[in-house]
């Protein structure tokens, strides 16, 4: 299958999964399970960075429209995450073994699990920091914000790695 078609298919699957998650899996107000940042995390490093930002914006808006949230909230967090991605990859991506493979997605097939976990955790930190700060701007409390941030980063990093181990690599292979 053509690479672009694969990414579009994966994007569509992720939007549907997120809409279903938002609709039926609401465990705790402090816990927000977001699978769609994983799509932005795994895009190849060779992709045009402006196109990368626009993709993040479009994906965020789609998620905002089809899940239960505020229009623009997920998009703002995803764009911030996409903008910070090159900088985070610059300091965390192992040199040597990945340089020759810039067109490959960032999955467990192309990168070690420790590096991928670190990259995922850092990018999700940016995502949730922006998301929670905008979300609680009207009613900011330090304890609530920090607790929600920690809970979301830990839970979503685990979910992302689990997704990578089970699904994403198979779809993009």
């Amino acid at each position, binding site marked *: 299958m053509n690479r672009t078609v694969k990414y579009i298919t994966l994007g569509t699957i992720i939007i549907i999964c997120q809409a279903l998650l*938002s609709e039926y899996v*609401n*465990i*705790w*107000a*402090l816990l*927000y399970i977001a699978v769609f940042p994983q799509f932005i995390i795994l895009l190849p490093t060779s992709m045009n*960075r*402006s196109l990368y*930002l*626009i993709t993040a*914006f479009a994906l*965020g808006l789609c998620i*905002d*429209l*089809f899940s*239960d*949230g*505020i*229009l*623009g*909230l997920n*998009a*703002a967090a995803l*764009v*911030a995450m996409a*903008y910070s991605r090159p900088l985070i990859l610059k300091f965390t991506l192992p040199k040597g073994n990945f340089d020759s493979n810039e067109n490959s997605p960032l999955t467990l097939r192309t990168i070690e699990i420790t590096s991928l976990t670190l990259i995922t955790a850092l990018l999700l930190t940016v995502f949730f920091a922006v998301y929670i700060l*905008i*979300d*609680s701007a*009207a*009613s900011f409390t330090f*304890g*609530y914000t920090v*607790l929600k941030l920690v809970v979301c980063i830990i839970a979503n990093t685990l979910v992302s790695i689990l997704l990578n181990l089970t699904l994403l690599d198979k779809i993009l292979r």
Partner: protein
Amino acid sequence: MRIPPSLLFGLGRFLLFILLEAACIYMVSNNGIIQRYRLIGKLREVQGFFWEKYAAINEYSSLKNANEGLAAQNALLMHQLQQFKENTTPADTTDAPFAFITAKVIRNTVGTAHNYLIIDKGYNHGIKEDMGVITPTGTIGIIRGVSANYSYVLSFLNTSQQVSAKIGNDGAFGPLSWNPQRQGMATLTEIPQHLQINLNDTIYTSGYSSFFPPDIPLGVVEGFRTVNGVHLNIDVRLLEEFRSLKHVMVVENKNREEIDMLVNGTR
């Protein structure tokens, strides 16, 4: 001097980033929940049909609990009616400022930071935006979107929602907001420190907003603490069990337009 192309591209990307973030913040600040409802209003109407069917099945399987809830509500209303009869003359009942439209909840979220409800009444049934939604044991939310047969209610279980509440029937009042960290709890703030507060005191709606009538019991005091040495923050256990909500009442304030005209005219 020639500017390096990489610097130009970097600046371009930064400007694009700022532009996209500004667009997002604009949408969020313009109350994106309502915008989203309007954008996908037709889709919601179709979804509403299926949610209604699902709610009907769900309702049948939980008839025992629903009956118990209705019996409890009935007892409370009987008690309030009795008090009303004892304390007022028949002449007081004319021109009541509030009218109520009953509705069935067909969709209800409780586990997120932005919860909402969909009810099975829309503008065909006289529902308008900004009407309050209540039960005999709590304020449920405010109507934020209306289609022909369904309405979107922004739930009290939202970090941005507040209800004006008072302690006891004649006590001090302040804003009551949902506490997302503790299930079934809310926090009443801005209560003067010198007031005598007792555990299990009842919290009621103050009536100082045009959304909700006064004296609806909301919850009971479970604890309190001093904040900044000036105010008390009171932990309130909500009476309403949002998870098992089946029926609600939409509040129509007949004096609303007049109040709004006064408020807007003095600004």
